[in-house]
């Protein structure tokens, strides 16, 4: 007798437009953050799935997490253990996770040791015992851990055909009993092609971990899952207090609504820069601000966000170098109030600096914040800091993941301003040492130039996709109003882009700059 289960999601369609009604395959939600998206809507009900992979990759934890997420008194989970990790150890360690609910042990989640049956008797006896227990308990989910140990023991005594026949009978019985089954086992990559078990089962979830330099990467791959449109590829997995957490390569952004055809132009918060951009940044563009240290990239980013807040556009600042207080204090020095936005919930400043983050985790932190505040503007300050915050093993994936995230977010109409530090050399104008310009629609380059015995700052709009922009190189200062573009196009200098221009016109009279005042300690 099937009991209704709230933890199910229907992923198939019961009706078609021009044909007979097809079966709706319901998906069991796994209780693992991010995994249901990767699976295309959960584990198909009544399927037989192998959870395989290398030791320590989280197979047993994943099985427990799914078990606790779906166990009910009416349709309990039967967790059969066979010659693998002893139950006492399993209970000892798994109860450290938040999902482990001790109140469910013995009623909703029942552990049954089959080691004695496996050791003393044959596969028929094992099947009989499983059938007896499943029928008696009206189980909804069955886990066999470790199935590999069972198969190995059986293979040493009977042929492969016997084992295959056992799996076939087990699968037929459990599916007919409306049971969703997980076979947990340690397998190596090569076995997927050689072991006939992998052909019989409906799904294969593969977990692995790879050490790279000082960090360990955990990955999950859905090798196959009948009846589901899964997200292909290797997905990052983290095991923490809450159990497994999966980070989909699609970043959960598949199916986002496309950006509107008619796009507004947004102010940068710097009127003269807006003019240079032909009226501002196009909504849904990705703008890159490139320049050396101290040229005002973060100041410009702050003004961009503050302008959005003024116009009712919530924003996120993902910062990797400076602390949040630095941003709010600088904003106050420019007469901009970021704290009010934070208090109203229209601005979040995410300070992301731990050095062992995976790129997808970081992306998810940003995406979660975007969803929370319904952000229209996003600042990433800076891309270099972002990459540095990642564990070394994840840096190889950085550009690919950034590309996916920026593509998906701008596609959904969110306007992104990223900064990148570029070292000035005094012979040419580099946009970035960093091959990321393909990520951006617009690029503004800031640089130092030596003029009249001073190191001044100039900016130029290098690129603006889908719009005309000024070709002028303009001088700017950072004042108590933030970045202020001050000078019209300088025609009396040649070679501004090199940083060491030479005069082509007459020297203009100018007042001497007063010496800087000493800062008063607060």
């Amino acid at each position, binding site marked *: 007798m099937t009991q209704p289960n709230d933890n199910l999601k229907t992923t198939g369609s019961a009706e078609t437009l021009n044909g007979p009604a097809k079966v709706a395959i319901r998906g069991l939600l796994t209780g693992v953050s991010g995994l249901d998206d990767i699976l295309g809507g959960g584990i198909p009900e009544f399927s037989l799935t192998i959870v395989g992979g290398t030791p320590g990759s989280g197979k047993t934890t994943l099985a427990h997490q799914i078990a606790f997420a779906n166990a009910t008194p009416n349709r309990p989970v039967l967790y059969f253990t066979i010659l693998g990790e002893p139950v*006492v150890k399993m209970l000892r360690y798994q109860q450290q996770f938040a999902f482990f609910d*001790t109140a469910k042990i013995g009623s909703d989640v029942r552990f049954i*040791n089959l*080691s004695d049956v496996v050791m003393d008797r044959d596969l028929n006896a094992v099947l009989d015992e499983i059938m007896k227990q499943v029928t008696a308990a009206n189980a909804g989910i069955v886990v066999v851990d470790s199935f590999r140990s069972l198969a190995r023991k059986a293979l040493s005594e009977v042929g492969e055909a016997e084992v295959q026949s056992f799996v076939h009978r087990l699968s037929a019985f459990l599916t007919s009993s409306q049971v969703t089954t997980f076979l947990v086992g340690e397998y190596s990559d090569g076995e997927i092609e050689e072991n006939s078990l992998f052909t019989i089962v409906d799904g294969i979830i593969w977990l692995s971990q790879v050490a790279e330099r000082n960090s360990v990467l955990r990955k999950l791959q859905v090798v196959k899952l009948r009846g589901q449109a899964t997200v292909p590829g290797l997905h990052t997995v983290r095991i923490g207090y809450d159990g497994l957490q999966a980070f989909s390569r699609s970043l959960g952004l598949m199916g986002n609504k496309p950006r509107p055809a008619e796009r507004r132009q947004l102010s940068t918060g710097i009127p003269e820069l807006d003019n240079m951009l032909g009226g501002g940044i196009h909504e849904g563009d990705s703008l890159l601000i490139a320049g050396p240290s101290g040229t005002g990239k973060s100041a410009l980013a702050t003004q961009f966000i503050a302008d959005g807040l003024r116009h009712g556009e919530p924003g996120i600042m993902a910062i990797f170098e400076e602390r949040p207080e630095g941003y709010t204090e600088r904003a106050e020095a420019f007469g901009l109030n970021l704290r009010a936005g934070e208090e109203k919930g229209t601005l979040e400043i995410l300070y992301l600096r731990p050095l062992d983050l995976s790129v997808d985790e970081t992306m998810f932190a940003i995406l979660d914040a975007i969803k929370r505040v319904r952000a229209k503007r996003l600042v990433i300050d800076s891309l270099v800091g972002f990459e540095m915050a990642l564990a070394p093993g994840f840096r190889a994936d950085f550009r690919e993941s950034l590309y996916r995230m920026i593509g998906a977010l701008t596609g959904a109409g969110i306007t992104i301003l990223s900064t990148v530090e570029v070292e000035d050399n005094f012979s040419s104008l580099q946009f970035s040492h960093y091959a990321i310009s393909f990520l951006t629609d617009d690029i503004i380059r800031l640089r130092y130039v030596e003029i009249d015995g001073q190191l001044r700052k100039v900016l130029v709009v290098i690129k603006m996709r889908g719009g005309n922009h000024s070709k002028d190189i303009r001088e700017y200062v950072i004042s108590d109003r933030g970045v202020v573009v001050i000078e019209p196009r300088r025609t009396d200098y040649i070679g501004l882009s090199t940083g060491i221009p030479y005069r082509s016109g007459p020297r203009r009279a100018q007042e001497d700059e007063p010496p800087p005042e000493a800062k008063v300690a607060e």
Partner: protein
Amino acid sequence: MNQATPKLQALARDLIVHETLGRTLSEFDAATVFQVIERLRAHLVNLMGTGGFQALLARALALASVEVLWLSKIHVNAAGTFEGLETAHREVNPAEFLKGRIAVLAHLLGLLEALIGLDLTERLVAEIWPELRSTISLSADSEVQSDAAK
């Protein structure tokens, strides 16, 4: 390392008294004296297999033997049952025999608590003796309350 705390010893005594309700100690033969452990055995073998239970019981016996000397004359066989019990039953006086029973059971519960935690141990015992569910509590708080109530 003594895991058989006074609280566990009290629980062990309660379980034994509950199992032997209505009968006197002299009525027991060697086969039934460890009836509480037998009931635990059925559940624990289902959980951890015969080998797992045998190892756990042997460890409990080893720990209890330090406190009650006659226990060193018996041992746990591969099937997870006691051997040498009948001889010990004949030779040891009833009070000392009861002390040994309590010690083994208390250490067995203590081992479970150390391995799977207080909560799961309590649940396991309550599952086997549902009629005692309201009185089974091994937590420190309940110990304080219990002591205060005395």
